[in-house]
């Protein structure tokens, strides 16, 4: 990921050559470099060798399936993974997100939507590189040393739980975080089933960081899946 030739590189893993060809035309036209892999084994090799900036991963593939690819990738790489899933793949989609995928689009997807998700994934990768004591995302500043939080120029006081939750969100902007992932990242593995508590903490946090807590713009709900912290919002 540190290697940078100016053009972000994308690895697309799908067993359908027509889709890969069309993606190539679109992405290369927008200044991305595209590598393709037709199956899971090729994908794992390509990620190890070429260190792409973003991975597009089809969940339904023969051989090593997308979910397994996701797990094995996460064993050695933090590259953003964008899952391409079919409507009938709902359950597998959540599993892939639990296993470390960053986001998903449902096939058939609109090209604009896909490009927006790729940009968000790249932004996130960029943010991760800046390992600084003060994080600033979407109008929220979080000082990790002084444990101070400033929202739209106003300092707000958070409880330790709310602070931890916000820290997880700010460190993972524009990424779908499943309820389980959030619980584990915020409280540790012993709390992975405390979904009801998570909902309460999110509601409390929204009261501190949202302009209208009943119509959240920053911390948005993905019903049945989890939450997404948006670095850009209307």
């Amino acid at each position, binding site marked *: 990921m540190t290697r940078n030739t100016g053009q972000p590189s994308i690895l697309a893993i799908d067993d359908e050559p027509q889709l890969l060809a069309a993606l190539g035309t679109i992405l290369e036209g927008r200044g991305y470099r595209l590598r393709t892999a037709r199956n899971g084994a090729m994908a794992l090799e390509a990620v190890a060798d070429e260190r792409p900036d973003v991975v597009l991963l089809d969940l339904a593939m023969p051989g090593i399936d997308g979910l397994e690819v996701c797990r094995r990738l996460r064993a050695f790489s933090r590259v953003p993974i964008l899952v391409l899933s079919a409507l009938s793949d709902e359950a597998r989609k959540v599993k892939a997100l639990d296993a470390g995928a960053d986001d998903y689009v449902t096939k058939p997807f609109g090209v604009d939507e896909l490009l927006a998700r790729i940009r968000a994934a790249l932004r996130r990768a960029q943010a991760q590189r800046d390992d600084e004591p003060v994080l600033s995302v979407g109008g929220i500043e979080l000082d990790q040393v002084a444990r101070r939080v400033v929202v739209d120029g106003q300092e707000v006081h958070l409880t330790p739980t709310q602070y931890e939750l916000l820290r997880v969100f700010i460190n993972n902007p524009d990424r779908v975080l499943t309820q389980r992932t959030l619980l584990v990242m915020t409280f540790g593995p012993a709390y992975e089933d405390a979904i009801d508590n998570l909902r309460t903490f999110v509601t409390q946090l929204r009261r501190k960081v949202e302009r209208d807590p009943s119509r*959240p713009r920053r911390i948005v709900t993905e019903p049945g899946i989890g939450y997404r912290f948006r670095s850009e919002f209307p």
Partner: protein
Amino acid sequence: MFQITSASAQRLVRAASIGVPAGVWAYAVALIASSSALVVAWWLLAPIETDSSVPALMFLAAVGISGWYGGLGPALVATALGGLAIDYFFEVPRYEIQVTNGQTLTDLLSFLLVAVLLGSLNARLRLSNTRLRAERDRAQAAVEARDDLMATVSHELRTPLTAIMTSVYSLRHEMAALPADKRDGLLGTIEVEAERLAHFVAEALALRRLENGLIPQWQPTSAAEVASAALDRCMPLLGSRPIHFAVDDELPTVRIDPAMLDQALTVLVENVAVHTPPETPLTVAGTVSGRDLRLEVSDAGPGIPSSARQLIFDKYERLVPTSPGAGLGLAIARAAVEAQGGRLWVEDSPLGGAQFVLLIPNAVGEDAEA
């Protein structure tokens, strides 16, 4: 297997093509048949010297007819009437209702035995015949409904495919002759029709999954969160219309399937965007009363006439046939609500248009999962 059942049912129906008289009429038949049996036996057979066995056969016929047309009750009435008539008119001593000798007793008992058997057998035969006919009608209706469905589905698939194929053909074979704006038009058609196809396939698949009994993933959920997320997703469609969001984020936690609720609310809000004039208001409101969750999506559009308020929830039904979509949205919404044990209906909106009400009973509390 099905055809054999149907054919034999049709034979049975043809054998008795008169309908079942209901209630009083069934007993009237018993009375009329028994009286006729008496008339025949008395006036026609009286001149011939005969014992009580020939009149008994007449009364058995009356019992049989009563059982077939009326069922078991009328058959028993005819049996009783027949027994009384045999004793009164044909047994010695005549014109008295009493059993004085062994012959009378034997005659009456044998009549009663055969009559009860005949009556109940006929009644049962009639019942199974009726059931077979009803079943055949249902099967017939199901076949017709499936044919209708296939016709609609293939229309929804073929129409965009035809547009796409002809546009591609033009672009491929007449590229040189086409001016730039025509080319753009054809490409636009391909894009729109492909999206329409994708939308239809996604909807049909979603409905199929719900119809096949998709099991809800129960989760403690904030109704306000889900409603807000659904509304957000539809914002690009809703344009600049005034939106009033009245789902309190302090409502009690409900135990529902958030993805299914999202699916239903998204359909309802999308419908407002598509079917009501731009700039007209939209309200999304939510309350919990007792343990029931109630969500309302209200608009100020043309509303739904009361005659169509059931029909619009059927699949492939559209109030305005020219409106976009295949008519699956509300069928999906209803299936998603009913899968969670809830109800979805439409009424008049205080805003002047339609108000869709989504009610999930017992959503609050520990045993909401039951």
